[in-house]
């Protein structure tokens, strides 16, 4: 190790000592990600919601309507909370947020269905709640289809059709859905795979800005420049390396937990994802350095990192696809390392595409690492002057 490089080591050691003396560092680098891993995985442990409260308005009070209620209740997805007397009772219950959906069985349902008068089952869902609305709709719709099938079967049997004929008559074409990489349509698989990396990205940007910005604020940065032999590059390297190590460890912990313990799908093995995680950590740090270089005042730099990090959750496009957003947002989305991590996850974990398809995303993240170099002179000036004003 040359004498020049020794500075990196000194700053590295000093940074580790800071971690030990200031709890905020470890709290944010280890504590918050641990909290979020625990939070998101226990929140939706079952993957799909079960026993969603729904209601039924039974205006028929017949054998058929009672059997319909039993069918609905036997479904794991929903729980018939109440049988209402009227539509307005059910609607009020929905407005009180007691049920997510209800079905109305019309008067004379049994008679009409047997005599070919085509009664109508009306399903009402509260789609202000996305997942609840979607899953309770599925259960109610299926109940209606089962009721239809049962009656139709009875009619056809009456006409003397054979069982094998009936299947094709009832449903000539059967749709077979294959959700690629998530056959259980688990919300937990869908969400945890990307929300945890997004969270890591936010914390990395914040902590990078915090680590460098607080040295300027506390007036230590000039001394650090002396330690690093006036090289801002070495200063940043020594300063951020401890964080890089810890954040990469947290990232890998997330992956071990998701792919090892929870056995989430991983089509092409762990290596493409480990590579993506390491690059995401380093490129998020690079963006953090860029921000504090641009706004070398701790609280402004932190505000920028906070505002950008939070927007990241939307622009990464897991909840609302980027391709559906307006064009400017589609471009902006590329500026988030987690967006490229997300695409690599899609290509390498959910699907088993060749690694060449992911190359562009790896390169994007490598590109971010170059970003701070443009601002190093400006950052050096700020580190030297130590001029701090809020």
């Amino acid at each position: 190790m040359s004498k020049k490089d020794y500075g990196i080591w000194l700053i590295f050691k000093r940074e580790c000592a800071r971690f030990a003396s200031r709890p905020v560092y470890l709290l944010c680098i280890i504590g918050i990600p641990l909290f979020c891993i625990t939070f998101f995985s226990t929140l939706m442990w079952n993957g799909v919601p079960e026993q969603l409260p729904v209601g039924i308005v039974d205006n028929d009070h017949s054998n058929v309507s009672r059997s319909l209620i039993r069918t609905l209740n036997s479904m794991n997805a929903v729980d018939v909370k109440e049988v209402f007397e009227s539509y307005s009772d059910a609607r009020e219950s929905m407005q009180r947020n007691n049920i997510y959906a209800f079905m109305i069985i019309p008067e004379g349902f049994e008679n009409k269905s047997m005599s070919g008068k085509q009664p109508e089952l009306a399903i009402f869902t509260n789609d202000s709640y996305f997942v609840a609305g979607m899953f309770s709709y599925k259960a109610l719709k299926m109940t209606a289809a089962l009721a239809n099938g049962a009656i139709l079967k009875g009619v056809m049997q009456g006409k003397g059709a054979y069982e094998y004929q009936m299947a094709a008559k009832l449903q000539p074409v059967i749709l077979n859905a294959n959700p690629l990489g998530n056959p259980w349509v688990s919300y937990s698989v869908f969400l945890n795979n990307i929300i945890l990396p997004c969270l890591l990205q936010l914390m990395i940007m914040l902590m990078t800005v915090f680590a460098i910005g607080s040295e300027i604020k506390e007036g230590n940065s000039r001394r650090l420049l002396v330690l690093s032999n006036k090289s801002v590059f070495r200063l940043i390297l020594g300063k951020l390396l401890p964080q890089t190590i810890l954040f990469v460890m947290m990232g890998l912990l997330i992956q071990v937990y998701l792919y090892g313990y929870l056995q989430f799908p991983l089509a092409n093995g762990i290596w493409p994802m480990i590579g993506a995680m390491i690059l995401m950590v380093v490129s998020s740090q690079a963006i953090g350095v860029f921000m504090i270089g641009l706004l070398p005042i701790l609280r402004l730099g932190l505000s920028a990192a906070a505002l950008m990090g939070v927007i990241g959750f939307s622009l990464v496009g897991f909840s609302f696809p980027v391709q559906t957003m307006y064009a400017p947002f589609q471009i902006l989305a590329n500026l988030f390392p987690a967006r490229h991590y997300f695409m690599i996850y899609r290509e390498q974990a959910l699907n088993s595409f060749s690694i060449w398809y992911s190359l562009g995303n790896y390169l994007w993240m490598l590109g971010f690492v170059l970003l701070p170099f443009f601002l190093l002179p400006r950052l050096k000036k700020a580190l030297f002057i130590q001029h701090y004003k809020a």
Partner: protein
Amino acid sequence: MNNNENLRQTIIHGIYDVAYIWIEEFKTIFKDKGAMIFLFFLPLGYPLLYSLIYNPEVPREIPIAVIDNSRTTLSRQYCRMLDGTPQVNIVSYAANMDEAKALQASQQIFGIIELNKDFEKDIVRSKPVNVELYCEMFSLLYYRNILMATTDVTGAFNQYIQEQGIPGATEKQLSMSVSPVKSATISMFNPAGGFATFIMPGVLVLVIQQSLLLAIGLLAGTQREKNKNHHLIPLNRRYLGTLRIIFGKTLCFFPIAVIASFWTMVIVPQIFNFISLAHIIDIAVFMLPFILSSIFLGMTLSCLIRGRELPMLFYVFMSIPLIFLSGISWPWSAIPPFWQWFANLFPSTAAIQGFIQLNSCGATLEEVTPYLTSLWTLTFIYFITTFIVYRYQVKKVTDEIDVMLKDHHNH
């Protein structure tokens, strides 16, 4: 008489002191860029930004590919029907799975439909035939819309086949024999199933709470750094009444939060045509305890979390768990009891649910009583905790003044 006089004096002094603190706090806010960002830019800018991001509401014409191994009149008709839906758009007829996969890998398509080579033959000879749908799962919204389109089309196609199979029947007879029971779905409170309609109420409410927590925390940090010995309260006689400080500060944040709420809950929904069924008075009644409890929670936390920049490190990430804890996405009824309990510690939980019921579902104030009650309970609890922590701060400063006076006398 004397006692009465004293009480009156105290009250008048109290009001003067509250007014003094109120003005001082206002001055501090406007001098602090960080606080300005979180008190004004955040609640004014972010609702607009998020509304713009989610404004397209639903994905339309999602590109998919079809592998038609049958290439017959019926298979082509199935594809035509699929292409006609608003949700999907067939951009390619692939020769085989490899070709389709290549398109999928380069993000040109997000779903693949494969039709069996005996598609028509099986239908004609009354044998059930499978249609395979391979769907991308990185986006639930894509999955939901592609599945909806293919399910609807398959249903309609089946009905068409069934009707063909009964010669000489009238239309009514046909549909009867195919479906003796009809079903209709009414999607309430979000007819288009739009994403903005669903997520924005949550964002609009949460942004108010987060802006208050961040700004109050930041300002407390600034005051600590400015004041002697890093106390939260300045060594100033007028700051030595716990209630006066709490009222003075609350009076300062409250009007700002009211303006911000008016913007996010009344103006922004109007700009973007979000469903807003509630009367403005009802919204105001509902928001009152929400704003108060958020302010008191912020003041309590500002005494516990020291250091000027720490609020940004601790509060910002919490926005994400808090959105999920409101039950807006993952249903409240499926949230484990421990997390429900944890969620109820934050005003945003009851406020988001109540606001959705009130404004999106058209509930009356009476119907959201449980949420109002829990918001007032939180207001009360956090007022008490604020009182306790500020009392302690005041005591610290008073003790210090006593020591200083003693020193002064000794000299």
